[in-house]
């Protein structure tokens, strides 16, 4: 396991005063990074986990500088979510360093460009490892902790792409649908334990993942999405939420199109 920065034990007393303790996996860019920035600014003790160490370091530095008068240094750990063997130890270290955990966000995801005539198993399974394998490996650890401590919030970043099997991204959509089902099961398991599980289904968000797309429909910035995600996570109203909310309408329409018509569209 590569650790780019050791814990800062001297800061741990500060963490006791934190507003909460959050862990974001997939934090080096996009919504994950925006979430880390906002959580840090709000006074959370935050741990950021991602594959790209240099981006993480820059993010941590920026978040530290931008935080309010109570500074909770952002812990950062370089980790590839497909290295699932590393997860238990990494998770344990993070929770110990944060002094506990209240909020977990799984924001790691990949959506490679898939050609209309491409059926590439290797590529598909690699996507599965990041979008699902890593999600299960991390979320199971978190779920067990939250189950046993009878509190906490789990947020999974799914996608509107999981609402319907589209031509463009068969496996990406499948991974997000699977994630939604997995999170629903966890929600049903954990609600009795006072644990909240939130599925976020973003529409089109301007992130590095969507950079290669030719056209974004109703795009919003990652910052805006992150703000909304945090609001939903801390609220009580939504278990499954499209971000921004207008995508719920889109989703309802798309889901109601009969299959024989849907296959003729280019959605």
């Amino acid at each position, binding site marked *: 396991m590569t650790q780019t920065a050791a814990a800062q034990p001297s800061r741990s007393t500060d963490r006791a005063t934190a507003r909460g303790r959050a862990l974001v*996996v*997939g*934090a*080096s*860019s*996009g*919504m*994950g990074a925006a979430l880390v920035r906002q959580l840090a600014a709000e006074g959370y003790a935050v741990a950021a986990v*991602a*594959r*790209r160490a240099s981006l993480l370091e820059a993010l941590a530095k920026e978040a530290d500088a931008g935080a309010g008068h109570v500074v909770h240094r952002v812990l950062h750990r370089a980790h590839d*979510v*497909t290295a699932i063997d590393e997860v*238990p130890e990494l*998770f*344990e270290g993070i*929770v*110990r360093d944060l002094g*506990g955990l209240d909020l977990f966000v799984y*924001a*790691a*995801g*990949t959506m*490679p*460009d898939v050609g209309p005539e491409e059926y590439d198993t*290797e*590529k598909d*399974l*690699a*996507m599965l*490892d*990041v979008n699902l394998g890593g999600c299960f490996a991390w979320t199971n*650890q978190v779920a*067990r*902790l939250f*189950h*046993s*401590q*009878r509190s906490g919030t789990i947020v999974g970043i799914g996608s509107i792409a999981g609402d319907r099997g589209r031509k463009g991204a068969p496996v990406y959509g499948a991974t997000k649908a699977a994630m939604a089902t997995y999170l629903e099961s966890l929600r049903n398991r954990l609600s*009795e334990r*006072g644990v909240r599980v939130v599925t976020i289904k973003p529409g089109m968000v301007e*992130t*590095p*993942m969507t*950079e*290669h797309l030719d056209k974004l429909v109703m795009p919003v910035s990652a910052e805006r999405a992150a703000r909304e995600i945090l609001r939903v996570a801390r609220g009580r109203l939504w278990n499954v939420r499209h971000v921004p909310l207008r995508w719920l309408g889109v989703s309802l329409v798309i889901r109601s199109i009969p299959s024989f018509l849907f296959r003729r569209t280019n959605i």
Partner: protein
Amino acid sequence: MEESPEANARTARQRPRSRPRREVRPRRGFEYVEGWGMSVGSQARVWRPTSSEEVAEALRRARADGRTVALRGAGCSYGDASTNAGGDVVDVGRMNRILDFDEETGVADCEAGVTIRDLWRHALPRGWWPKVVSGTMFPTLAGAAGMNIHGKNNYLVGTIGDAILDLDVVLPSGEEVRASREERPDLFHAVIGGFGMLGAITRVRLHTKRIHSGEIEVAGISVPNVGAMMEYVDAHTDDADYLVGWLDCFGRGDALGRGLIHHARYLEPGEDPDAARTMTLAHQQLPGSILGFPKGEVWRILRLLAHDPGIRLLNFTKHQMGKLEQRKGWYRQSHAAFNFLLDFVPNWKFAYGRRPGKGLIQYQVFLPKETALDGFTEVLQRQQRRGHVSYLGVLKRHRPDPFLLTHGLDGWSMAMDFKVTPGTRQSLWETCDELTRVVLERGGRFYFAKDAVIGPRAVEAMYGAEALGAFRALKDELDPEELLQTDLWRRAFAAEGAFTASA
């Protein structure tokens, strides 16, 4: 993390084509580990071994990291018997295979994490029932042996240790040994009731009892006070297979310790014309709802009643219902329904609150028969005077047993549930300190599965120097570094301390 497309190109898939031979690597997680009563707990690394090699490996790894280890079964001990602040926990729950069951003799050979539930469900359709079961079916056999649990038939058949033939134990050194009454009897008698301080029990072989029906004959006997209850129980220890009394601890004066006795006996061959049907698992199913409420939600209703006036009302009602129950005379009940009263309402403990610091402690006092009535009267009166009245009281008759550290004596026990909140914790502990002195003055004892309060001086007083010295000597021999520790060990077996540990 979000990846750019070019980064994906090099994401090579790294799953092994075929499974290599598995190395000994116990699974682990990081979670909050608490006593069943929720009043103590801490975050800990939890190992979940699936074999005795993995148990030894977990012990080795914890030692290498300079950490202590608590052994844990299902975590059903109410207090801190399986929690370990700052250390690791080895949870044997995944070692849950019944290795062998002899249908001729009723001897079951079980891995450590087999629960009482697993055992009875295996044994009952074959015509057998565990000799000793707790009021809940979820404890593991290793946990049950470690705490040397008893049932409502303790006066007749002894503790679970009396039913055990032999055990396998992984010692702190990593060595696995077998212990029985013939082979290493010192270890056998110390590990049973040794609350996991000498080694990890990995396998238990024990007797079960032949039954001739899936039902048991039960009668409810309403009694006006604890004295009458003890009189009835004493008069029937010869003709009852189970005797247990429920007490309303709110009763005062002549009604002090009023309650309801359940007197039960096994059916003889031929008494149950429909034995083939009653000895099925389907017949043992606990009801899915209580008074029309789905049982999983009933704790929410109890939550509304979990304060002194509410429980006073509930207990009063139950006592009146007990009088009605007595009128109906003998009735038949499935073994599961009779034995596992605590499982009727899942998560009933949540009625005591689910937020940190809230919960319950169970406090069970054992008194020799000579001083029992006087002691129980004193215990009930004092808790009422101090405003910490137990919400549940259970009275049982006991007998001595040959184990080194045992709560067993020729006498009685009264188990009590006290509500804990952050605001009342201190005064509750003070009350328990007072009660502990009352019990020890009368030659009484306590039971670690149901304890969260007693301190080293109480332990010295109840076991006596000889037994305690022998236990400590064995601990020094087998575990000189004190690798095996729990919060209980540090609380009650410290070099010095008071009768009651601090809250």
